[in-house]
């Protein structure tokens, strides 16, 4: 009897696992659930981290909220799963999360071998090095023999190895899975150098015991286009995520902010009218409400607002727009036409 029972249990569990994998299109699943399950960082200030009240804040979090606003007309239909760098892609592949906005670098192998679709970049980053001022190091080229704190399973880990190898230098890596544990280890002096994306270094430094004791070295050794990602297999969902990011960029280009969006509804400019759904068409094409872009701008804001609120010069991170400025201001943020 015991055998029969355990057999039935085993069958049930395996069937459940199988039906999970076949749960149909991602968008339908998300709509049926009534919320989006989003994988975020959880430990990087300015990108994805809960504040002292437990409310999730950050550029990546706002990106996820924009997608929620587009699909549900409500930016708060999001549930967050904090993931380590090592867990993130598996969580997306397995269907544990619907959307990954966790400062993940878009690369060829991730796009192909991991079965992921990255969409428009929401932050252009590059890898840098942070050292204690007391070391007196001025350039990353002086780091021969240094002990380097790095997150496992990241492009950073490879870039650092490549950088030291190509400059004929030796490194001793200290590799710890949790972002916050790694930062603690670095601040306690276990490593000479912490390497990561420059934005993350700024975020880590912002929460350091003594932020002024650390400098970020001038060398940026890699390109890190950070982009949200979805699984292969549901192009409609991919399009919605893609255009949710683009809508924030386009809104900034058109000068639409969360403050003036209601006024802009009365604009006579057909480009604005099309964008905000006054002239219908875009919403239907994406399979969304015509007010989807309006909802994003109204509830989350345009890209400039989101940037300044989370990581801009007036925050603890104090990051300049740089590559993340609009193309009209010398940056890389550029949106295709919304028509």
């Amino acid at each position, binding site marked *: 009897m015991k*055998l029969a029972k355990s*057999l039935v249990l*085993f*069958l049930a569990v*395996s069937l459940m*696992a*199988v039906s999970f*994998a076949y749960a149909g299109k991602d968008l339908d699943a998300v709509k049926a659930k009534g919320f989006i399950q989003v994988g975020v960082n959880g430990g990087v200030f300015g990108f994805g981290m809960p504040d002292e009240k437990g409310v999730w804040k950050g550029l990546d979090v706002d990106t996820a909220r924009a997608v929620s606003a587009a699909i549900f007309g409500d930016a708060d239909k999001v549930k967050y799963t904090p993931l380590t*760098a*090592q867990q993130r*892609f*598996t969580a997306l*592949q397995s269907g544990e999360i619907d959307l990954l906005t966790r400062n993940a670098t878009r690369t060829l*192998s*991730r796009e*192909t*071998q*991991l*079965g992921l679709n990255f969409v428009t970049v929401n932050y252009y980053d590059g890898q840098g090095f942070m050292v204690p001022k007391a*070391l007196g190091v001025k350039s990353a080229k002086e*780091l*021969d*023999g*240094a*002990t380097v704190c790095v997150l*496992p*399973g*990241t492009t950073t*880990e*490879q870039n*650092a*190895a*490549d950088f*030291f*190898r190509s400059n004929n230098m030796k*490194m*001793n*890596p*200290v*590799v*710890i*899975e*949790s972002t916050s*544990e*790694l930062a*603690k*280890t670095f601040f*306690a*002096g*276990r490593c*000479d150098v912490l390497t990561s994306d420059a934005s993350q270094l700024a975020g880590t430094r912002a929460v350091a015991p003594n932020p002024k004791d650390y400098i970020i070295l001038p060398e940026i050794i890699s390109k890190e286009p950070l982009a949200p990602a979805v*699984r*292969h*297999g549901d192009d409609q969902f991919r399009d919605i995520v893609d255009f949710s990011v683009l809508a924030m960029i386009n809104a900034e280009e058109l000068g639409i902010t969360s403050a003036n969006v209601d006024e802009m509804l009365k604009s006579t400019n057909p480009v604005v009218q099309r964008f905000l759904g006054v002239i219908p068409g875009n919403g239907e094409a994406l399979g969304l409400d015509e007010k989807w872009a309006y909802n994003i701008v109204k509830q989350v804001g345009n890209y400039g607002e989101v940037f300044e609120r989370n990581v801009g010069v007036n925050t603890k991170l104090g990051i300049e727009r740089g590559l993340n400025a609009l193309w009209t201001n010398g940056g890389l943020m550029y949106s295709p036409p919304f028509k």
Partner: protein
Amino acid sequence: MPSAVPFWRDEAKRAIVFQLAAIAIVFGISYYLFSNTQANLQRQSIATGFGFLDKEASFEIGESLIEYSAADSYTRALLVGALNTVKVSFIGIVFTLILGTVIGISRLSKNWLVSKLAAAYIEVMQNIPVLLQLFFWYAIFYEAFPAPRQALNPFTGLFLCNRGMIFAVPAAHPAHSAMGWTLLAVLVGGWVLNRWGKKRQAATGKPFPALRITIAAAIVLPAVVWLLYGAPTAMDIPALRGFNFKGGVTVSPEFSALLLGLVIYTSAFVAEIVRAGIQSVGKGQIEAAMAIGLRPAKVLQLVVLPQALRVIIPPLTSQMLNLTKNSSLAIAIGYADFVAVTNTIINQTGQAIEGVALIMLVFLVFSLSTSLFMNWYNKKMALVER
């Protein structure tokens, strides 16, 4: 003879049918899960297969028993990880056995303080999750010790800092391998001597001090070899160069913290097993042994231990396996064990199923070989009934 008993009434045949059905179901489900996974992976265009093993790893590993660089293949990186797991598990098991036995015996001590201290140790260490203990020890290592430039230097050749413990070792010299071989020869000789001694004792009743002779030889003979090679005394002394120490041998804080955490946690369980084993030997036996004039050490060696070991070995095996498996918590404190290395590889290649299968396979091999050895030892120790 009743010729036609239908097979469903024949108990033996019915049993075979049930067995076949069970096998068919297991295979059916396995095949279903396998083909389904394959189809899903293909649908999501996720790469499959073990072709990635030959590719360049392109990441560094903090510590390694063999030569390794980022230019080596994934296979080599996996080997480094597996060896690191073996290293921490093996050293951990040895220390756990020693510490656990000492505490287990202390627990039975007639000295009130000693036995209470041992009891407190067991209660506390058993009940704190091992992951917390690891974090605790690791934090102690990197918070309490100074930076390399201010390293503690209690005596020449030893440095303590938050990069680990760095100590001088004798500089490489052919004498060392010769000494190693000599020691091995002494150990083999000691084993043979011990067997001969036992045989002689069984025949004539005269004991032979094989152990003492072996220990003396193990100390004297390698020293003689060392002198024959001209007594090389050159040391490889570590010195601070640039960011870190060069030379000598470094024991990293990650390794130390993991070893300490695993040993302290597991030895609490081993202590209880040892105590239970000793208590399982009837009091009357000890009294009887004393009554025929055996000294306490001989009572332990000849009467208590042989019987206690029978009780101790099976649960001890499972604690040894626990320690090996718990070593995979290394990833939390940055020790490059097999799981940590494989996780990085999974992330770079995206081949989670292959990676997890490798982890399972490697741990299965570790566990099965440990339990094979322990089962063999258990059989050797088991009661031989006459």
